[in-house]
């Protein structure tokens, strides 16, 4: 039987080598979340992860978030569904995520980090996996729990969040080959860097709109003079 399976697998690999790689990198998340130190190292240094899988996790994370808002029992969530704009919520999750990744990457030179932007993004995406695998079933669970059993829900909720944060921490550590202390400092610096990026973006857009307004008014003036 095992022989037949291995032949089967070999055939499959030849037929869909990319699909199989995708499947393997996707399933590798299971190893990462339970063995983060080993897992994150191999993820980037042994090429056990893939960008496609990382994108998948980000998309799943965003989907989970929306499903949570929509289908969690109202006993456990306060969401005025009438006034929620999904795109706005997604942007408010995705933009900080990306800005933090960019800030961390920008500072990696300063901190002697080994990771490339791709590695950082991949590690951060794999760190989102506990959120998905805990909160997705939790949506169903919330609908069979009564309000006074809510502690069960909140505990699992916190577990998923703490797990994610821990994975992100370890992920950065392994990607950049830092010690824990240096990781902590680099995280503080990253948050500061993210603020700087946001500030620069604001300044940029405000200048852009000013410049645009200048040319627009110049155009209007010329048209007015010519006519």
């Amino acid at each position, binding site marked *: *039987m095992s022989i037949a399976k291995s032949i089967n697998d070999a055939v499959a690999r030849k037929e869909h080598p990319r699909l199989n790689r995708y499947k393997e990198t996707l399933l590798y998340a299971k190893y990462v979340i339970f063995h983060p130190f080993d897992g994150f190292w191999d993820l980037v240094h042994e090429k056990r992860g893939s960008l496609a899988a990382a994108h998948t996790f980000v998309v799943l994370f965003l989907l989970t978030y929306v499903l949570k808002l929509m289908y969690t029992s*109202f*006993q456990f969530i306060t969401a*005025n569904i009438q006034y929620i704009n999904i795109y706005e919520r997604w942007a408010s999750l995705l933009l900080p995520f990306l800005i933090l990744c960019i800030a961390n990457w920008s500072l990696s030179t300063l901190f002697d980090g080994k990771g490339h932007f791709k590695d950082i993004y991949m590690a951060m995406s794999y760190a989102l996996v506990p959120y998905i695998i805990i909160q997705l079933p939790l949506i169903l669970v919330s609908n*069979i729990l*009564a*309000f*006074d*059993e*809510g502690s069960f829900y909140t505990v699992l909720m916190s577990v998923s969040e703490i797990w994610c944060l821990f994975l992100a921490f370890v992920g950065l550590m392994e990607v950049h080959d830092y010690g824990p202390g240096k990781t902590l400092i680099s995280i503080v610096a990253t948050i500061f860097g993210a603020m700087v990026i946001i500030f620069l973006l604001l300044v940029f857009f405000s200048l852009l709109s000013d410049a645009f307004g200048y040319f627009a008014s110049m155009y209007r003036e010329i048209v007015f003079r010519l006519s």
Partner: protein
Amino acid sequence: MKINVRLLVLLAALIILMPMADAYAAEDGFTSTYTYNYDYWGDIRESPDAYRVSDVIYSSTLGLEKAMRSPKSLFVRDQDLYIVDTGNNRILQLTKIGTHFEMVREIDHVTIGADQMEAFKAQSDLLKNEDGSDYTDENGSFYLKPPLGSSADRGPMVLTADGVTYFNNPNDVSVDPDGRIYVADRDNNRVIVMDKDLNYLQMLTKPTDSTFDQNQSFLPNKLVVDTSGRIFVLASNINKGLAKFEADGSFTGFIGANTVTYNLWDYIWKSYFMTKEQRSQQAAFVPTEYQNIYIDKEGFIYATNISFSEYDLLWDNAKPIRRLNAVGSDILIKNDRYPPIGDLQWVEGSSDHGASKLYDITVLDNDMYVVIDQTRGRVFGYDPQGIMLWAFGTSGVPAEGAFTRAVSIEHIDKDLIVLDELNSTVTVFTPTEYGNLIYQASEQYLLGDYDGSAQTWEKVLQLNANYNLAFIGIGRSKMRTEQYKEAMDLFKMAHDRTNYGRAFRYYRKVWVEQNIWWVVVIIAALVVFFFVRKTIRKMKWEVAAYEHSKVHK
């Protein structure tokens, strides 16, 4: 062209809707409503009027020679309404006959019997001549010492030669069931007690107790009297809470002090970053004073408080409404999502923005309490659980039911009486059918008539389909009759998690009991399936292994 079509549609809609608006106005006499409530999300939901103006009392309707001038307080004993006409140093006693109020008398003096004269003089802080005898003017009247920090050579006249003492800036009045009248006579620095024929009984003056700051004048602002005759006085300059006097007039300390509120940031900023000069100019961390007090029929004191930062309100640190027990701790029940703080939306950017300033409170006989807000001239009703029943009122516009500076609220039965200091008017509100139904449903529930309560709530829902308490009330009744699914839907409508959770537990239990057999069947089937599959695989493997071994032989 497009716009024209839209306009036409709009006009058509208006024409169709017009008769409906007329019908509404005709049926109920009002074209607009100014009553509202807050929904679960803190948004304003307009509602039918819970109260309407039934009477407005002006100085002219009472036939007063001297018009009321900045009246400060109201008090109700049975059917009698007392208005403290502060600006004219008198108290007006009115009585309710039928639906309107009639003047009974003006109270502006207290007669002191000859036998009490010496005691009265001794207790008053009289102005003395240099030789130690009491100072008198040409008419033989006695005067108080000038107020602390004042440069005047004498204080207010406090006693005439024939033993009559007048009020000087009275701020509050209270009347006990026996008819004894208590007046917070502010600028005479005393609380004076008289019988119903205005004969002097006793007087409360500045306590000589060391807990009372002797450098401060005793300026009583508000007072309440409990059933055993204890007097609780709210005085200016005192931030230790309410001064408590026993029935015999002896001072026995303070109760219910506000706790000092400051945050860590303020503390650090003040302690380490301010110069000494800056610090001395800033207010110290002192507890705030209460604004007004009311004693309910059980003897608990309700107090309101208007000096707080708006930030504290949001986190319920300010506690603008409190219910104080005998030792002075706050025991107000707050079971709603939002604490009782008046308006939840503070109309940023307009002239009357900011949090509600709750100037006075009154507690109805059914334990509902009503507060009045001066920021926007609004009245808020709460049930004993701290859930807002309704809110109405407006300020600024010269109309019945609008206030310019509402300072006091009282009630007779379920009628609310509001005093406006600036307009010198007293407005009487009577509950509408809607308002009465809300009270009735709550009272029925408290009495244990749950089904009757649910039926009344149904009627409330017909008048206002946005009323959360009605959904909860009906839901509770459904739960009692084991209609759990319906109860859940109703509780969900009202966002009542606790009750929903309770109903859901029962619903789940029933569901499991009814569906347990096929759940068990499915689980059993799954177990059997996996077992069979495993066995078949094992057999196949054995066969394969056997075949394999034959090949290699």
